[in-house]
């Protein structure tokens, strides 16, 4: 069974977070902090917003299909 797109998106978000944690163990200079605050954090924040909105929309689509069956 294929997972819902929002669930796959969540999984990808976790993988990216893991990759950053791993990289941050070795990359700790000013550029790393700048990258984290100016680029990565906004990306993760926007990704979470998108996935939350997607989850809500997909819930509505599923409810519509269920409620209009028969």
């Amino acid at each position: 069974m294929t997972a819902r797109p929002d669930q796959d998106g969540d999984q990808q978000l976790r993988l990216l977070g893991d990759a950053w944690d791993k990289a941050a163990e070795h990359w700790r200079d000013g550029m790393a902090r700048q990258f984290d605050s100016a680029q990565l954090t906004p990306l993760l924040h926007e990704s979470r917003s998108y996935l939350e909105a997607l989850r809500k929309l997909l819930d509505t689509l599923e409810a519509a299909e269920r409620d209009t069956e028969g």
Partner: protein
Amino acid sequence: MTRIHADIDALKGLHDALVRYRHAQRDVTARSEDQLAVTRASLEGKASRCRTQLELCQAELGACQDRAARAAEDDSADGTVDCSGYARAVEQSGERLEQIRRWQQRIDAEASEFQVTAGRFAGLLETELPRMEEYLVAIIASLEAARRVQTPAS
């Protein structure tokens, strides 16, 4: 050697993760659009079938009401014609069609709201993420160049 290049390896790992993330989330956005289109088409199909059913029920009710009117005019007719079953069928078909329309309207409204967030996210995937990847490539290249310069002297 491994410890010296651990930061470069870590940055390469992060770069690769960003590239995978961009492709995977593009796939997520495409599948989401597909899902929206599939549900819209499904509801439109149900609405269409329901409209046909409603028209059929209305025609049957009309025919019944004609029979009832003729029976009422005909004194010799035996009893009255009951059209309540047809009327109920019209009512139920109308309610079902209205229910489907309400879902269509709700989905249109929510999809319109969703498109604002989705548009921002798509822009991020298409513009910001490649920039981040390029930024990391540049840092990796500069670190590698610096190590190459430092290595003979050390």
